[in-house]
């Protein structure tokens, strides 16, 4: 009983929550999901490959693929319960990619080389952060 009390106290202090319900909610989270992880790796890889096509006619197709991969990741993350942080991350990333897709494939504007490389670099950097943190979600035992 004493050990259980200690465990309870540790749980409350780890979560920083004032009530048992808040503590329960804090620890009740989406766990590691193979599909979600793979989709995030796809986005990261697609951003890496797309950056190499800046300034070439093939870049439009790369941007379309990146848009598709990012949308798929966001939609998949949204379908998992208790997955709030991942939904925020993937939604923000999708908005970053939206600007790129709009410029290349909707407005069909002239795009500077600098914009293209900065944009892809930024997307890859954020996709790496997302992939790493998704990969470290608690695994089922």
């Amino acid at each position, binding site marked *: 009983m004493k050990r259980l009390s200690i465990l309870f106290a540790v749980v409350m202090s780890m979560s920083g929550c004032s009530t048992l319900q808040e503590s329960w909610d804090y620890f009740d989270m989406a766990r590691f999901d193979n599909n979600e992880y793979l989709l995030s790796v796809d986005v990261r890889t697609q951003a890496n490959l797309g950056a190499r096509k800046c300034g070439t006619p093939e870049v439009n197709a790369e941007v379309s693929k990146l848009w598709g991969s990012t949308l798929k990741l966001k939609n998949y993350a949204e379908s998992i319960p208790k997955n709030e942080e991942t939904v925020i991350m993937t939604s923000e*990333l999708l908005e970053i990619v939206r600007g790129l897709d709009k410029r290349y494939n909707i407005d069909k504007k002239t795009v500077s080389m600098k914009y293209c490389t900065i944009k892809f670099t930024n997307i890859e950097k954020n996709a790496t952060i997302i992939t790493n943190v998704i990969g*470290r979600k*608690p695994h089922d035992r």
Partner: protein
Amino acid sequence: MIDNAVKELEEWVGNNHTELADWASDAKSLTEQFKAGGLAEDEYLELMEDLKRSQKISDAADALAVRSRANELLDNLITAAGVVL
């Protein structure tokens, strides 16, 4: 006006708070490239907006990392408690 903003960014780049310094460094670099004519105005504005979005991604990633770690610790505590109880 943009020169004042750049001066302020330079002060922030030297800030001890790493996250803030990184953000200021990125913003300063974008502003310099815009002033040098390497970026169109609409491209520059979009990339500056992206910095805010990137910050939100970092904040959510930090929150998720802490929550995941806390969960793993709890799993370990429960396993250990199961062994000794």
